């Protein structure tokens, strides 16, 4: 799909999210809800007393019964639908050709862990913090944009061997 058309439709979806639900489009918040919900299911008393989880389970609320979790469920279906239409639904490992699969999977796991911590500390990810933040000109979105992309360019320079084949080798 043309990137400008895709971006335009994505923008309309963000507007719809704000208009109907009063929510931004997000991802890490939904994963947080799932993590908290699993803890709530196993150890409800621990969850109710934990300062970070408590606000999400107050008054017997289920931490997973949230708008963001339903939205994430939709993402799964939407991505599969598009992959089927474009003929891209298959098992594979995405990586630069010179990287071994094993190394790619370890790096992906490590990157994920960093995102898990970073999103909870920074209050959202590229969609919930940055994209949805920019959509309403919130300062948090601009700080997130500068931090994620600013740091990204510096780390990309330092770790270019992950994505670009080293020269003269």
């Amino acid at each position, binding site marked *: 799909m043309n990137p400008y058309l895709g971006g335009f439709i994505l923008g309309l979806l963000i507007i719809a999210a704000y208009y*109907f639900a009063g929510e931004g489009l997000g991802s890490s918040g939904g994963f947080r809800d799932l993590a908290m919900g699993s803890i709530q299911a196993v150890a409800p008393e621990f969850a109710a007393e934990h300062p970070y989880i408590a606000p999400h389970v107050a008054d017997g609320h289920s931490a997973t019964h949230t708008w963001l979790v339903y939205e994430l469920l939709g993402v799964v279906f939407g991505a599969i639908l598009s992959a089927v239409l474009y003929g891209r639904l298959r098992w594979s490992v995405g*990586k630069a050709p010179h990287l071994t699969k094993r190394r790619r999977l370890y790096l992906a796991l490590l990157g994920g862990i*960093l995102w*898990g*911590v970073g999103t909870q500390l920074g209050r959202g990810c*590229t969609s919930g913090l940055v994209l949805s933040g920019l959509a*309403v000109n919130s300062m948090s979105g601009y700080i997130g944009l500068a931090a994620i992309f600013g740091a990204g360019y510096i780390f990309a320079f330092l770790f270019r061997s992950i994505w670009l084949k080293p020269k003269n080798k």
Partner: protein
Amino acid sequence: MGPLYPQELLNPEYNLLIGFLIGIGFGFILEATGFTNTRKLAGVFYGYDATVIKTFFTAALTALIGLFLMHHWGWIDIYKTFYPSTFWIPTLVGGVVMGLGFVVGGFCPGTSLSAASTGKRDAWAFLAGVMIGIYGFIFTYKTWWAGLRASGKLGKVNFPQWLGIKEGIFIFLFVVVAVITFVLYQKWQNHWKTKLTKEDLDELGL
């Protein structure tokens, strides 16, 4: 007048159903524009693929202009939505951690879920990492994070207002910066095109 659900103009079940439908659109667009391809995402940082930058900022500007006009016309009160509160210190620190995670892991949470759904095994590893990271954060919250996460509180801050610029003028400047960025990224991508192999170009869909 919106937002509907926070003002009890939409019942909770419909709200969740709409969330599910919006999610379908979100996942579809992420896949259709190529955000499930980790190499296209890394192209943001190396310049060989401008797709992600174009899609991302077009989305941001569409939503920004749309919501600005709707707020102006009284169709939605943006301050009755979840309008994010700014905690500048943890967002800056967390953002740097996410920036490192982006380069090392090649995804962000939303793109990894889409990619995992379409069979990318590296995205499964990434998602496992995200959950490990979140559990780790929760279980070490009291000792390590509680103070830092609550620091630098500024409240609900509108960035142009904070800068002392009229919102309409700010948005206009944003559009100008975005168009310049698109042009420069396109040049960067063209510059790379001669250096990439045919396999690379096929995989990136360029």
